[in-house]
Protein backbone atom coordinates (compact mmCIF):
# COMPACT_ATOMS: atom_id res chain seq x y z
CA UNK A 1 0.00 0.00 0.00
CA UNK A 2 2.90 2.31 0.80
CA UNK A 3 4.39 1.93 -2.65
CA UNK A 4 1.05 1.73 -4.45
CA UNK A 5 -0.06 5.11 -3.11
CA UNK A 6 3.27 6.68 -3.92
CA UNK A 7 3.80 7.71 -0.32
CA UNK A 8 7.54 7.38 -0.87
CA UNK A 9 7.37 10.13 -3.50
CA UNK A 10 5.38 12.45 -1.25
CA UNK A 11 7.90 11.86 1.53
CA UNK A 12 10.82 12.52 -0.77
CA UNK A 13 9.23 15.69 -2.15
CA UNK A 14 8.86 17.01 1.39
CA UNK A 15 12.43 16.31 2.41
CA UNK A 16 12.14 12.87 3.99
CA UNK A 17 9.25 13.67 6.29
CA UNK A 18 5.51 13.47 5.72
CA UNK A 19 3.89 16.90 5.30
CA UNK A 20 1.97 17.79 8.42
CA UNK A 21 -0.81 20.32 8.88
CA UNK A 22 -0.91 22.37 12.02
CA UNK A 23 -3.99 21.65 14.04
CA UNK A 24 -6.50 24.48 13.86
CA UNK A 25 -6.65 26.25 17.19
CA UNK A 26 -10.19 25.87 18.53
CA UNK A 27 -11.37 29.02 20.25
CA UNK A 28 -12.23 28.03 23.80
CA UNK A 29 -16.04 28.05 24.05
CA UNK A 30 -17.32 30.19 26.89
CA UNK A 31 -18.12 27.93 29.82
CA UNK A 32 -21.89 27.40 29.98
CA UNK A 33 -23.61 27.31 33.30
CA UNK A 34 -25.53 24.06 33.80
CA UNK A 35 -29.28 24.84 33.42
CA UNK A 36 -31.23 25.18 36.66
CA UNK A 37 -34.17 23.20 35.31
CA UNK A 38 -34.35 20.10 33.13
CA UNK A 39 -37.83 19.39 31.72
CA UNK A 40 -39.26 15.98 32.70
CA UNK A 41 -39.99 14.86 29.15
CA UNK A 42 -37.83 15.51 26.14
CA UNK A 43 -39.18 18.28 23.94
CA UNK A 44 -39.42 17.35 20.29
CA UNK A 45 -37.36 19.42 17.91
CA UNK A 46 -38.74 19.82 14.37
CA UNK A 47 -36.58 18.38 11.60
CA UNK A 48 -34.25 20.69 9.71
CA UNK A 49 -35.71 21.94 6.40
CA UNK A 50 -33.16 23.48 4.06
CA UNK A 51 -35.50 23.89 1.07
CA UNK A 52 -35.59 27.25 -0.66
CA UNK A 53 -38.68 28.69 -2.30
CA UNK A 54 -38.13 28.92 -6.05
CA UNK A 55 -40.41 29.69 -8.99
CA UNK A 56 -41.60 26.56 -10.78
CA UNK A 57 -39.11 25.12 -13.21
CA UNK A 58 -39.96 26.48 -16.65
CA UNK A 59 -40.28 23.94 -19.43
CA UNK A 60 -37.45 24.21 -21.95
CA UNK A 61 -39.96 24.73 -24.75
CA UNK A 62 -41.29 27.94 -23.16
CA UNK A 63 -39.07 30.95 -23.90
CA UNK A 64 -40.03 34.65 -24.02
CA UNK A 65 -41.99 35.19 -27.22
CA UNK A 66 -43.35 31.65 -27.52
CA UNK A 67 -46.94 31.27 -28.68
CA UNK A 68 -48.84 29.27 -26.06
CA UNK A 69 -52.23 27.56 -26.28
CA UNK A 70 -54.30 28.09 -23.11
CA UNK A 71 -56.19 24.94 -22.21
CA UNK A 72 -58.54 25.90 -19.39
CA UNK A 73 -60.48 28.81 -18.06
CA UNK A 74 -62.25 31.65 -19.77
CA UNK A 75 -59.73 31.81 -22.61
CA UNK A 76 -59.42 28.12 -23.35
CA UNK A 77 -58.16 27.42 -26.83
CA UNK A 78 -56.75 30.91 -27.30
CA UNK A 79 -53.29 31.28 -28.73
CA UNK A 80 -51.34 33.76 -26.73
CA UNK A 81 -47.84 35.28 -26.50
CA UNK A 82 -45.65 34.45 -23.49
CA UNK A 83 -43.80 37.39 -21.94
CA UNK A 84 -42.02 36.25 -18.81
CA UNK A 85 -42.23 34.05 -15.76
CA UNK A 86 -43.14 35.83 -12.52
CA UNK A 87 -41.56 35.08 -9.15
CA UNK A 88 -44.63 33.09 -8.09
CA UNK A 89 -43.96 30.69 -10.99
CA UNK A 90 -46.98 31.78 -13.05
CA UNK A 91 -46.47 32.84 -16.64
CA UNK A 92 -47.17 36.44 -17.71
CA UNK A 93 -49.04 36.33 -20.98
CA UNK A 94 -50.77 38.75 -23.34
CA UNK A 95 -53.15 38.21 -26.30
CA UNK A 96 -52.28 40.82 -27.58
CA UNK A 97 -55.59 42.28 -26.45
CA UNK A 98 -56.46 43.86 -29.79
CA UNK A 99 -55.97 40.56 -31.61
CA UNK A 100 -57.77 38.03 -29.45
CA UNK A 101 -59.13 39.74 -26.35
CA UNK A 102 -56.70 38.22 -23.87
CA UNK A 103 -55.30 40.98 -21.61
CA UNK A 104 -52.08 40.95 -19.64
CA UNK A 105 -52.75 37.92 -17.52
CA UNK A 106 -51.15 35.29 -15.39
CA UNK A 107 -51.48 31.65 -16.38
CA UNK A 108 -50.19 28.43 -14.85
CA UNK A 109 -47.64 26.47 -16.80
CA UNK A 110 -49.60 23.24 -16.39
CA UNK A 111 -52.60 24.57 -18.29
CA UNK A 112 -50.67 25.55 -21.36
CA UNK A 113 -49.33 23.88 -24.50
CA UNK A 114 -46.16 25.48 -25.82
CA UNK A 115 -46.00 25.67 -29.62
CA UNK A 116 -42.75 26.02 -31.49
CA UNK A 117 -43.81 29.37 -33.01
CA UNK A 118 -41.85 32.30 -31.56
CA UNK A 119 -42.55 36.03 -31.76
CA UNK A 120 -39.81 38.62 -31.41
CA UNK A 121 -40.31 40.20 -28.02
CA UNK A 122 -37.26 42.45 -27.81
CA UNK A 123 -39.25 45.68 -28.22
CA UNK A 124 -41.39 45.04 -25.15
CA UNK A 125 -40.61 46.18 -21.62
CA UNK A 126 -42.11 43.87 -19.02
CA UNK A 127 -39.99 44.90 -16.05
CA UNK A 128 -42.77 46.55 -14.12
CA UNK A 129 -45.14 43.58 -13.98
CA UNK A 130 -45.01 41.32 -10.97
CA UNK A 131 -47.46 39.30 -8.88
CA UNK A 132 -48.50 42.30 -6.79
CA UNK A 133 -49.72 44.07 -9.95
CA UNK A 134 -52.20 41.25 -10.48
CA UNK A 135 -53.27 40.65 -6.90
CA UNK A 136 -56.86 41.33 -5.83
CA UNK A 137 -57.35 44.81 -4.44
CA UNK A 138 -58.40 44.56 -0.75
CA UNK A 139 -60.94 47.19 0.23
CA UNK A 140 -61.05 48.45 3.75
CA UNK A 141 -64.15 46.95 5.40
CA UNK A 142 -66.48 49.65 6.61
CA UNK A 143 -68.20 48.90 9.91
CA UNK A 144 -71.87 48.41 9.14
CA UNK A 145 -74.61 49.81 11.24
CA UNK A 146 -77.90 47.92 11.52
CA UNK A 147 -79.67 50.28 9.21
CA UNK A 148 -77.18 49.68 6.47
CA UNK A 149 -77.84 45.93 6.47
CA UNK A 150 -81.26 46.48 5.01
CA UNK A 151 -80.03 48.70 2.24
CA UNK A 152 -79.38 46.92 -0.97
CA UNK A 153 -75.72 46.02 -1.09
CA UNK A 154 -73.95 48.57 -3.14
CA UNK A 155 -73.00 46.78 -6.32
CA UNK A 156 -69.68 48.34 -7.10
CA UNK A 157 -68.53 47.10 -10.43
CA UNK A 158 -64.82 47.46 -10.19
CA UNK A 159 -63.80 49.33 -13.31
CA UNK A 160 -60.44 48.67 -14.86
CA UNK A 161 -58.19 51.53 -13.82
CA UNK A 162 -56.97 53.61 -16.75
CA UNK A 163 -53.40 52.79 -15.71
CA UNK A 164 -53.90 49.13 -16.57
CA UNK A 165 -55.41 49.98 -19.91
CA UNK A 166 -52.39 52.13 -20.73
CA UNK A 167 -50.02 49.34 -19.69
CA UNK A 168 -51.84 46.95 -21.99
CA UNK A 169 -51.60 49.39 -24.90
CA UNK A 170 -47.90 50.04 -24.42
CA UNK A 171 -47.03 46.34 -24.22
CA UNK A 172 -49.14 45.46 -27.22
CA UNK A 173 -47.98 48.30 -29.47
CA UNK A 174 -44.51 46.88 -30.13
CA UNK A 175 -45.82 43.30 -30.20
CA UNK A 176 -48.49 43.93 -32.79
CA UNK A 177 -45.94 45.50 -35.14
CA UNK A 178 -43.74 42.39 -35.08
CA UNK A 179 -46.79 40.13 -35.39
CA UNK A 180 -48.09 41.93 -38.47
CA UNK A 181 -44.71 41.51 -40.11
CA UNK A 182 -45.24 37.73 -40.25
CA UNK A 183 -47.90 36.66 -42.79
CA UNK A 184 -50.99 34.95 -41.30
CA UNK A 185 -49.67 35.23 -37.73
CA UNK A 186 -52.30 37.80 -36.77
CA UNK A 187 -55.21 35.61 -37.86
CA UNK A 188 -53.46 32.62 -36.26
CA UNK A 189 -53.42 34.35 -32.89
CA UNK A 190 -57.00 35.45 -33.36
CA UNK A 191 -58.24 31.92 -33.97
CA UNK A 192 -58.94 29.39 -31.24
CA UNK A 193 -57.31 25.97 -31.18
CA UNK A 194 -59.54 22.92 -31.30
CA UNK A 195 -59.14 19.22 -31.96
CA UNK A 196 -60.71 17.89 -35.14
CA UNK A 197 -61.53 14.36 -36.16
CA UNK A 198 -58.39 12.32 -36.67
CA UNK A 199 -56.11 14.61 -34.66
CA UNK A 200 -54.25 12.64 -32.05
CA UNK A 201 -52.73 15.02 -29.47
CA UNK A 202 -49.96 12.60 -28.52
CA UNK A 203 -48.86 12.43 -32.16
CA UNK A 204 -49.25 16.12 -33.01
CA UNK A 205 -46.18 18.27 -33.22
CA UNK A 206 -46.90 21.65 -31.67
Amino acid at each position, binding site marked *: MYHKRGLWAIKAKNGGVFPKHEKKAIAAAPTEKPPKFYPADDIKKPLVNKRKARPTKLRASITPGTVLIILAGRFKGKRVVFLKQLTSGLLLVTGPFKINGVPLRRVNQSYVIATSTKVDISGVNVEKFDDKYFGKKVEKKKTKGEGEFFEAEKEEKSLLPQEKKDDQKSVDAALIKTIEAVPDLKSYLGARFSLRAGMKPHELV*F
Partner: protein
Amino acid sequence: MPFKRYVEIGRIALVNYGKDYGKLVVIVDVIDQNRALVDAPDMVRGQMNFKRLTLTDIKIDINRVPKKKTLVAALEAADVKNKWESSSWGRKLIVQKKRASLNDFDRFKIMLAKIKKAGVVRQELAKLKKETTA
Protein backbone atom coordinates in the same frame (compact mmCIF):
# COMPACT_ATOMS: atom_id res chain seq x y z
CA MET B 1 -52.59 -13.10 -59.91
CA PRO B 2 -48.96 -14.18 -60.56
CA PHE B 3 -46.25 -12.58 -58.45
CA LYS B 4 -44.47 -9.64 -60.02
CA ARG B 5 -41.91 -8.73 -57.32
CA TYR B 6 -39.48 -11.54 -56.46
CA VAL B 7 -36.98 -11.93 -53.71
CA GLU B 8 -33.68 -11.85 -55.59
CA ILE B 9 -30.24 -10.48 -55.06
CA GLY B 10 -30.42 -6.77 -55.71
CA ARG B 11 -34.12 -6.37 -54.90
CA ILE B 12 -34.79 -3.15 -52.99
CA ALA B 13 -37.10 -3.63 -50.03
CA LEU B 14 -38.69 -1.34 -47.46
CA VAL B 15 -38.30 -2.28 -43.80
CA ASN B 16 -41.74 -2.32 -42.19
CA TYR B 17 -40.95 -3.33 -38.60
CA GLY B 18 -38.23 -2.82 -36.07
CA LYS B 19 -35.34 -0.51 -35.42
CA ASP B 20 -34.79 0.34 -39.11
CA TYR B 21 -38.47 1.02 -39.83
CA GLY B 22 -38.96 2.96 -43.04
CA LYS B 23 -35.50 2.37 -44.49
CA LEU B 24 -34.80 1.18 -48.02
CA VAL B 25 -32.46 -1.83 -48.03
CA VAL B 26 -30.97 -4.09 -50.66
CA ILE B 27 -31.32 -7.88 -50.45
CA VAL B 28 -27.76 -9.00 -50.78
CA ASP B 29 -28.11 -12.74 -50.06
CA VAL B 30 -30.72 -15.26 -48.98
CA ILE B 31 -29.84 -17.11 -45.80
CA ASP B 32 -32.65 -19.64 -45.59
CA GLN B 33 -36.36 -19.90 -46.17
CA ASN B 34 -37.16 -17.06 -43.82
CA ARG B 35 -34.18 -14.74 -43.67
CA ALA B 36 -32.22 -12.53 -45.99
CA LEU B 37 -28.90 -10.79 -45.68
CA VAL B 38 -29.70 -7.16 -46.10
CA ASP B 39 -27.53 -4.07 -46.60
CA ALA B 40 -27.91 -0.32 -46.99
CA PRO B 41 -25.35 2.48 -47.31
CA ASP B 42 -25.99 3.76 -43.78
CA MET B 43 -26.31 0.51 -41.85
CA VAL B 44 -24.23 -2.50 -40.94
CA ARG B 45 -25.03 -5.47 -43.16
CA GLY B 46 -27.23 -7.90 -41.21
CA GLN B 47 -29.90 -10.54 -41.40
CA MET B 48 -33.59 -9.74 -41.52
CA ASN B 49 -36.69 -11.88 -41.61
CA PHE B 50 -38.67 -11.56 -44.83
CA LYS B 51 -41.68 -10.75 -42.76
CA ARG B 52 -40.01 -7.45 -41.86
CA LEU B 53 -39.50 -6.51 -45.50
CA THR B 54 -41.88 -5.23 -48.15
CA LEU B 55 -40.55 -5.69 -51.67
CA THR B 56 -40.53 -2.75 -54.05
CA ASP B 57 -40.40 -2.63 -57.83
CA ILE B 58 -36.81 -1.47 -57.90
CA LYS B 59 -33.99 -3.91 -58.58
CA ILE B 60 -30.30 -3.25 -59.01
CA ASP B 61 -27.57 -5.27 -60.66
CA ILE B 62 -25.14 -6.69 -58.11
CA ASN B 63 -23.32 -9.91 -57.40
CA ARG B 64 -24.04 -12.02 -54.33
CA VAL B 65 -22.74 -10.20 -51.23
CA PRO B 66 -20.88 -7.31 -52.84
CA LYS B 67 -18.39 -5.12 -51.02
CA LYS B 68 -19.88 -2.01 -49.45
CA LYS B 69 -18.17 0.25 -51.98
CA THR B 70 -19.52 -1.78 -54.92
CA LEU B 71 -22.98 -1.73 -53.37
CA VAL B 72 -22.98 2.04 -52.93
CA ALA B 73 -21.68 2.50 -56.49
CA ALA B 74 -24.40 0.22 -57.86
CA LEU B 75 -27.06 2.14 -55.96
CA GLU B 76 -25.77 5.40 -57.40
CA ALA B 77 -25.62 3.98 -60.91
CA ALA B 78 -29.19 2.74 -60.78
CA ASP B 79 -30.31 6.06 -59.26
CA VAL B 80 -32.42 4.23 -56.68
CA LYS B 81 -33.03 7.30 -54.53
CA ASN B 82 -34.61 9.36 -57.31
CA LYS B 83 -36.55 6.42 -58.70
CA TRP B 84 -37.99 5.81 -55.25
CA GLU B 85 -38.83 9.44 -54.52
CA SER B 86 -40.57 9.86 -57.87
CA SER B 87 -42.61 6.67 -57.53
CA SER B 88 -46.13 7.11 -56.17
CA TRP B 89 -45.33 4.91 -53.16
CA GLY B 90 -42.25 6.93 -52.31
CA ARG B 91 -44.08 10.23 -52.77
CA LYS B 92 -46.86 9.05 -50.47
CA LEU B 93 -44.36 8.29 -47.71
CA ILE B 94 -42.71 11.68 -48.09
CA VAL B 95 -46.07 13.43 -47.80
CA GLN B 96 -46.96 11.37 -44.72
CA LYS B 97 -43.69 12.36 -43.07
CA LYS B 98 -44.21 16.03 -43.91
CA ARG B 99 -47.73 15.98 -42.51
CA ALA B 100 -46.57 14.37 -39.27
CA SER B 101 -43.93 17.03 -38.73
CA LEU B 102 -46.25 20.01 -39.20
CA ASN B 103 -46.27 22.76 -36.62
CA ASP B 104 -49.54 24.12 -35.19
CA PHE B 105 -48.93 27.33 -37.16
CA ASP B 106 -48.26 25.30 -40.32
CA ARG B 107 -51.52 23.45 -39.89
CA PHE B 108 -53.33 26.79 -39.61
CA LYS B 109 -51.67 28.12 -42.78
CA ILE B 110 -52.61 24.94 -44.64
CA MET B 111 -56.21 25.34 -43.51
CA LEU B 112 -56.30 28.89 -44.91
CA ALA B 113 -54.76 27.68 -48.18
CA LYS B 114 -57.32 24.86 -48.49
CA ILE B 115 -60.20 27.26 -47.96
CA LYS B 116 -58.79 29.65 -50.54
CA LYS B 117 -58.31 26.88 -53.10
CA ALA B 118 -61.81 25.55 -52.51
CA GLY B 119 -63.16 29.05 -53.02
CA VAL B 120 -61.42 29.42 -56.37
CA VAL B 121 -62.60 25.98 -57.51
CA ARG B 122 -66.15 26.74 -56.49
CA GLN B 123 -66.11 30.01 -58.43
CA GLU B 124 -64.93 28.28 -61.59
CA LEU B 125 -67.52 25.57 -61.14
CA ALA B 126 -70.26 28.17 -60.76
CA LYS B 127 -69.06 29.88 -63.94
CA LEU B 128 -69.13 26.61 -65.86
CA LYS B 129 -72.56 25.75 -64.54
CA LYS B 130 -73.89 29.11 -65.67
CA GLU B 131 -72.46 28.56 -69.15
CA THR B 132 -74.04 25.13 -69.57
CA THR B 133 -77.45 26.19 -68.33
CA ALA B 134 -77.39 29.44 -70.32
